[in-house]
């Protein structure tokens, strides 16, 4: 299994969260919104020039700051 960050992950693709780098605080914030290890997410868009990443998880659409998206690793084959 191979991991890449949500920023590098391709738009319009679906993948499972492999790991969340970063501290407890980030873990908790993401956990409260339903993003945790093993959760399936779809990347909808990425605003260039270090802009935010937009993902879909369940029925929620979430926008994450660039730095935060860099810390979310996605499983790829």
């Amino acid at each position, binding site marked *: 299994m191979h991991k890449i960050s949500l920023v590098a992950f391709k738009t319009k693709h679906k993948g499972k969260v492999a790991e969340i780098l970063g501290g407890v605080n980030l873990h908790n914030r993401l956990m409260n*919104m339903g993003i945790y290890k093993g959760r399936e997410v779809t990347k909808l868009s990425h*605003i260039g020039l270090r802009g*935010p990443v937009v993902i879909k998880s369940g029925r929620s659409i979430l*926008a994450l700051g660039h730095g935060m998206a860099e810390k979310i690793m996605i499983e790829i084959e």
Partner: protein
Amino acid sequence: MIKKIYLIGNPNVGKSVVFSRLTGVQAISSNYPGTTVEITKGYLRLGDERIEVVDLPGTYSLEPTSSAEEAAVSLLGEYPKNEIVVINILDSTNLERNLLLTLQLIEAGFPILLSLNMCDDAAHKGISIDIKKLQGILNVPVVPTCAVTGTGIRLLIERIKEATSIKRGELGHEERWKEIGRIIEQVQHLEHRHHSLREVLEDASVRPLTGLIMAAVVIYVSFKIVRFVGESIINKVTDPLFFNFYQPALEKMAFYWQGKGFLFHLFIGDLINGKIDFKQSLGMLTTAPYIEFGMVLPYVVSFYFILSLLEDIGYLPRLAILLDNILHRLGLHGYAIIPVLLGFGCNVPGILSSRVLESKRERFIASTIISIGVPCVPLQAMIFGLLGRFGGFYVGGVYLVLFILVLTLGFILNSILPGFSPEFLLEIPPYRFPPLDMLVKKLYFRIKGFLMEAVPVVLIGVMVINILLYFKVLDIVTGLSAPVVNGLFGLPKEAIVALAIGFLRKDVAIGLLMPLGLSVKQLFIAATLLAISFPCAATFIVLWKELGLKDLIRSTLMMIIVSIIVGTALNFLILR
């Protein structure tokens, strides 16, 4: 015996709409997370009892991650659990995410009942929820509601007494999500629907290229509509009323009054060529009402109409995504666009809503930027009224100066303040189309708020000024300030009165400039200075409350320094 009812739920599930339905107290609701930053209270009649209902800011979890969430959670602990009822409001179109808070509330032992809100929206999207089954699994009363139309509210009130706390073991984070997954599988049934136009638009507005095009169109069209509606109200309604009806009546009165005494001066003011001039007479019955109703109110109506529409549709969070980049350079993140936009209406709600930002550093930057560089509607209306006749160049110029100031200040503050700008994690709501009556209600509520606040202050302001002018008290002040006002800014020394009155209200302040016969350049400088210098008293008090005394002083010092620099620079360098 129930002492209090708390409304709690995730952000943007319609808590404030349910609150209004329960208590009759109108609360502002919008389609974005974080509309309610203050705690609102009202009363519900239940049989013979009158119970206080508290509308809490939205929270995703009982483990808070922002100050608004913290406020919500800490309030829940104020009363013993057996004396309160918690109404947990959920978004039926996103049951899964909403159930986290529900499980936490049940585990913590709160007596709760669930209001599955937006049930009509869920039906539209092909989502059906088995209410009986959900009730059976959770063991708490569940009522489907649609607060916007009022469906289910009566049943919700009837079942408040059934809320009891039940025992349920506490789960770990991930187990809780797994449990939620199991519940969803049993109670929720999805019907496959094709992509609707709404979903295509939702998607397009968050992609880089199509998003920017949509943003440009939305902003341009909004601006055009605000101007068009504002001008139409002035030309078709308020000006005819003032000039065809009010002025002749007042002049008749002035004719019989004849006397030139103090009271005549106070109420009517000076006659210009033997006639009342609403822009120059400066009386409590002439200029005061004309400024508020004839110049400012039309734009208040048009601005809040567009803002309310954009809020309710749910466009603003999408704008936040697109602007995140730029705002990061200023030490903020994209969501700061919400306080900034509200600040364009009135700085007070703008600064209050900066509570949606996480850190104190961000809130300081946002509040300072708003009070210096974001002109409120009354101020803008007056700038249009005064500078508009010299062409768009000058009006645009004021905005350009303010825009450059905001960028520069934000950039400087971001580099000198310790700390960093946090990242945002934001839920993007679906587009919704509010029923017209909700929109009208919200507009009415905001306009009423504006009038209640503005009218007394304007009257008092004009009265104070008239008394001071009549007894020639101001000559001393104008003489003292002449070196700065005249020497540095190139304004006549009487302009200090207007600048000082800006502390009361900006619109009256600009009104005071009208009789001075200023040149375009002087008007430009005075209007810009009024925008960036001291905030009005109401904003000042909110800044104090939100930032504390120390930061208020820092913020104020910056305003004074910036005003002097900008005023002097405009006078000597740019507009020679």
